[in-house]
């Protein structure tokens, strides 16, 4: 399906989705190709409601294998809500309802028999604020492998912890103090610890919800570098407020506005020649 046509010649029932933004009526139908080669997850016609209020409208988006897709847009545009649909973290919010399909390996993760607990082991998450558990660095990383029974003995566990810390680029800094509390690390180290914790269970997809918004520029640079490394082994979806970050780390970018996916495409295209008026206004800093 080629949605670029929709912008030029809106068909009647799509006109109804037109909402008032600023002074003008603007068509919020998705512009650009939301599919990708070799997708790891597919979001299809997803609507999310908080009680009576709808937060996400008819979103379609693929998460590609071994690539990074970034979600940008002004606050309250539904990008975090959508991200949390991917591992069903929205289930923990009272009154939150998700319609539509989120597919992984061709199966809807919202199907009745899918256990969100097992899904979350395959779709890991890194949060906005570093949230290491009040345990030692070792126990933080060993948390997932322990609860999922991934290891037989202590040697296996130590190996997983070491590899995970290494892949998160934290091992050199903490290898002499694995028994110290994870909460004692600096903000950037804590966030990398959380990434190590997430990858310790070998998820297929990693969701990152503004992972650098609480960090200083140097720590941010390290995390961005790390995301580039992680892409080799994982599929990554990242929500960010920093357009530079989206440009640096991602291959595809999706721009959200008021709960609608307005434009999606290769990152370089979005930032050099946005097709939708709202995208252009946002990335050139005219609003948002």
């Amino acid at each position: 399906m080629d949605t670029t046509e929709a912008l030029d010649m809106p068909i009647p029932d799509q006109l109804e989705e037109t909402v008032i933004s600023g002074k003008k009526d603007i068509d919020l139908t998705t512009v650009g190709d939301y599919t990708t080669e070799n997708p790891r997850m597919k979001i299809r016609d997803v609507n999310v409601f908080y009680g009576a209020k709808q937060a996400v409208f008819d979103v379609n988006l693929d998460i590609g294998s071994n690539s990074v897709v970034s979600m940008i847009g002004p606050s309250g545009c539904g990008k975090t809500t959508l991200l949390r649909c991917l591992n069903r973290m929205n289930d923990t919010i009272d009154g939150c309802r998700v319609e539509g399909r989120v597919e992984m390996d061709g199966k809807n993760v919202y199907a009745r028999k899918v256990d969100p607990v097992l899904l979350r082991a395959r779709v890991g998450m890194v949060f906005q604020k570093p949230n290491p558990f009040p345990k030692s660095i070792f126990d933080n990383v060993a948390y997932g492998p322990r609860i999922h029974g991934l290891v037989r003995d202590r040697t296996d566990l130590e190996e997983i912890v070491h590899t995970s810390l290494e892949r998160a680029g934290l091992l050199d800094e903490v290898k002499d103090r694995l028994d110290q509390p994870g909460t004692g690390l600096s903000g950037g180290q804590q966030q990398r610890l959380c990434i190590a914790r997430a990858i310790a269970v070998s998820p297929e997809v990693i969701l990152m919800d503004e992972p650098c918004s609480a960090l200083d520029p140097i720590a941010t640079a390290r995390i961005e570098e790390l995301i580039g490394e992680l892409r080799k082994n994982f599929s990554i979806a990242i929500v960010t407020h920093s357009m530079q970050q989206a440009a640096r780390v991602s291959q595809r970018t999706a721009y959200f506005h008021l709960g609608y996916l307005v434009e999606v495409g290769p990152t370089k295209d979005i930032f050099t020649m946005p097709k939708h008026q709202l995208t252009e206004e946002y990335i050139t800093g005219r609003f948002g």
Partner: protein
Amino acid sequence: MSPLFLIFILLALSSAAYFFSQRRMLRQTRDANITRLNSLPEHFGMLGAIWAGAPALLVYFLWLIFEGDILMGQVLAILPDAESMAATRELLIGDIRNAINNPISYQMASEEVRMAADRYRELSQTASIALAAACLSVFAICSALVLKFLTPRVRARIQIEKFVRGFLLLCSTLAIFTTIGIVLSVLFEASRFFQTVPITEFLFGLDWSPQMAIREDQVGSSGAFGAVPLFVGTLLISFVAMLVAAPIGLMSAIYLSEYAPSKVRTAAKPLLEILAGVPTVVYGFFAAIVVSPALRGFGATIGLDVASESALAAGLVMGIMIIPFVSSLSDDVIAAVPQAMRDGSLGMGATHSETMRRVILPAALPGIIGGLLLAISRAIGETMIVVMAAGLSANLTANPLEAVTTVTVQIVTLLVGDQEFDSPKTLAAFALGLTLFFVTLVLNFIALYVVRKYREQYE
């Protein structure tokens, strides 16, 4: 004029001063063509009322506090050979007080005492007239000062703020000094007790039988004041209570804060609060009338000999009483664990109970322990349930099926009924009270410290 009537008059006069000052200020501003006052007219009214009324009220309350002592001093001074009676002065004062308040005592009192009582009444009447006169004249003088000094230039709003601060300070000082007073009086009486009974005997003695011969010729034991059986009994019952309250309270807190849908939570929380609102005396007869016989019957069927007033029954019911206390404290600390911890754990694919056990409980543990310590100190100080259900005999036993007694029960029994106030038996109550006070103080102190430490961790 009776003092009660006087205070109403003073209050009425102060209100009059309020309205008067307010009106007067409005009039003055109008006459002087002032367009902006620095405070509202009500502020001037209040300040007028305070300036006029407060000194008079102060005189009034100071007199009420010291009236008794001053008058009694006067009465004793006129009694013949008051000097020689210095030793029995306290007794004499007591007799005179009785004679004043109680017509029958007056009839039975000695000539001297009657004379003193008459004199006291006379003085008291004169005093109340003098008081009224004094208060009213103070009020009059202060009102005159208000007339002279309360001008639109006075910053009434600021002055009232100062007065409010002083008043609040006075209230908190009163509360603190009352507490200190109670502690000192318990300390003083307890030290009198320790003059007759060595403190080591009290703290380490294994035999408790406080019955003393009151008269010389009375048949009775000389009294033994080893409090260990009471401590053991108290601990035993508290232990049983915590065995009930800690798991149930904690689990229900976990359920309510982590699992329950919001509908259940809104319904169940008030129900738990109701449980906390049941008077302890109701728990007490519940323990004595329902639980004890039931336990006894049950014990009989499985071949156990359960005393009709067992530590088990009292402990069980006390545990039920403490459940809401434990539950609401635990609920608070569990809720204080940041949502990010839950998200982090759930996002790793942990189940609710794994999240609870591995992340939230360890994080909340210090706070929960603090809450449990507070609960223990409540259990130790709890009186009504054990008075009704725990029994009086001081057994030194760790068997919860037997009757034991507690510190609080003994305090009650020592002080109920006719007592001689300087016998070791009565004074023992103060020593027990002091011990209880000390133990709960230490427990609360540790608990609050732990809870506060825990709070800091996440703030």
